[in-house]
């Protein structure tokens, strides 16, 4: 008898189900739920690779993107993902909507529900805003980034990208460098990476590090350091975060030049990491500041792939959340 290749792909042990109404952060996800998202995303990735990368699964469902902060990739990625599944998409931004007339978040979210929104993808400058919204609507809320708190879909697409390149994250070393303190990407990544068993090193100037996170983690582990060269030793994956220029004015970093000297991911530093280490960045990049252009577009860089994979991962989440609503 012939062997059936890749038995995982046809495994029938699929008692896994998505139950949550909302996706607000990754800290509440079990390793099994993360696995479910990643497996579903693999199927969506296959759909996107077809000549016509579109199915009609969610026809009749309405997805609203509600963005109080500017965004290119997250908003566009969700819109493409929803359309690739056949859902209808309505895009709202704070400017040009009744938010400008002073409509409150709760009234806005209730209005969207009354219009027939099944899923609201929300980005807001205030940490916790999607939690408030989720409490006041029966529509599903997906956090597309809230203040300095969480960005769960980014973390899941990062994990998906890592897994496609390095396989299991168990025991792998991931270095996240930059303004970790104000980074919702770093925070959400920390939970998924530790759930996956990776060892995470958060690195940056002392003023931009959340020192309380050091030593945390039950499964994986988290270290915090200000020494980037040292952090890179044995690293399998290096993720640079965008340094917001406002930080300079607020006195948290002495100057961009100083920051570049200590924390720019460049060719010399990448040599310290393990050979073939992955280079990642959630975008948008400040090339020449937190990352050198030759590294951003170099061999180990999967930065553009992160964006492509983002569509597949968001399709998976929209699919799981919408079908869970029907149950």
């Amino acid at each position, binding site marked *: *008898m*012939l*062997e*059936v290749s890749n*038995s995982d*792909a*046809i*495994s*029938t042990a*699929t008692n*896994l*189900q998505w139950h949550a109404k909302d996706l607000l952060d990754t800290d509440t996800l079990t390793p099994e739920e993360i696995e*479910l998202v990643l*497996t*579903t995303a*693999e*199927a*969506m*990735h*296959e*759909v996107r690779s*077809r000549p*016509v990368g579109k*199915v*009609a*699964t*969610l026809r*009749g*469902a309405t997805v609203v993107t509600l963005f109080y902060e500017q965004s290119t990739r997250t908003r566009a990625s969700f819109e493409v993902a929803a359309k690739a*599944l056949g859902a209808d998409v309505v895009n709202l931004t704070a400017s040009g909507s009744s938010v400008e007339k002073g409509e409150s978040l709760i009234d806005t979210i209730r209005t969207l529900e009354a219009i027939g929104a099944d899923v609201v993808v929300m980005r807001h400058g205030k940490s916790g805003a999607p939690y408030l919204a989720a409490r006041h609507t029966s529509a599903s809320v997906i956090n597309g980034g809230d203040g300095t708190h969480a960005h769960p879909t980014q973390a899941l697409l990062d994990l998906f990208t890592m897994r496609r390149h390095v396989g299991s994250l168990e025991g792998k070393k991931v270095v996240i460098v930059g303004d970790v303190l104000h980074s919702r990407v770093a925070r959400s990544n920390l939970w998924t990476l530790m759930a996956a068993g990776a060892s995470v090193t958060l690195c940056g100037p002392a003023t931009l590090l959340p020192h309380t996170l050091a030593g945390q983690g039950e499964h994986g582990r988290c270290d915090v350091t200000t020494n980037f060269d040292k952090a890179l030793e044995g690293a399998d994956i290096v993720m640079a975060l965008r340094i917001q220029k406002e930080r300079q004015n607020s006195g948290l970093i002495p100057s961009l030049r100083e920051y570049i000297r200590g924390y720019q991911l460049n060719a010399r530093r990448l040599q310290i990491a393990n050979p073939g280490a992955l280079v990642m960045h959630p975008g948008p990049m400040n090339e020449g500041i937190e990352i050198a252009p030759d590294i951003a577009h170099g061999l180990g860089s999967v930065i553009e792939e992160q964006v492509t994979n983002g569509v597949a991962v968001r399709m*998976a989440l929209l*699919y799981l959340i*919408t*079908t869970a*609503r*029907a*149950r």
Partner: protein
Amino acid sequence: MSFERLLGPDEITRTIRRLAHEIIENNSGTGGLVLVGLLSRGYPLAVRLAAAIGEFEAERPPVGRLDIGLYRDDVTQRSAPAMIRPSEIPVSIDGATVVLVDDVLFTGRSIRAAMDALIDFGRPARVRLAVLVDRGHRELPIRPDFVGKNIPTALVQSVDVHLAELDGDDGVYVVSQEAAHA
């Protein structure tokens, strides 16, 4: 709950060999033939069928696998969709004779979904349907071209197919809930 075994390992093997002969006869050989198994249990059956066809003819047809989860007609209405897995068809199906392979044919809704899924991969010249078991109770105008065994069942019964690749053993069972006594 009671189980009645209708096919054992040897019978399944013989049935697959007969189906392989029928497919070859119907297609006048293996030219342009592609087998596509539905996940989960149609796929290992398609792999076995292809191996049997390869034994009888010079050529073993390519085998693909199809997940129909995204094409179901009840996704936003009811019941838990199983986990979605990547589909994979290793060759172009444009102009090919595609034989869809599944374990049990019941309402026909899975096959309807499978045809939708298949069409997203290309335009086959013809699509045939091979099933190990036809248990009746069709809800759509779909009929199989190659049938391993017709098993008339009551709606309250279910048919369980075990395949060694997934379940560790080969067997076809009819499962009956304890009948409310007559």
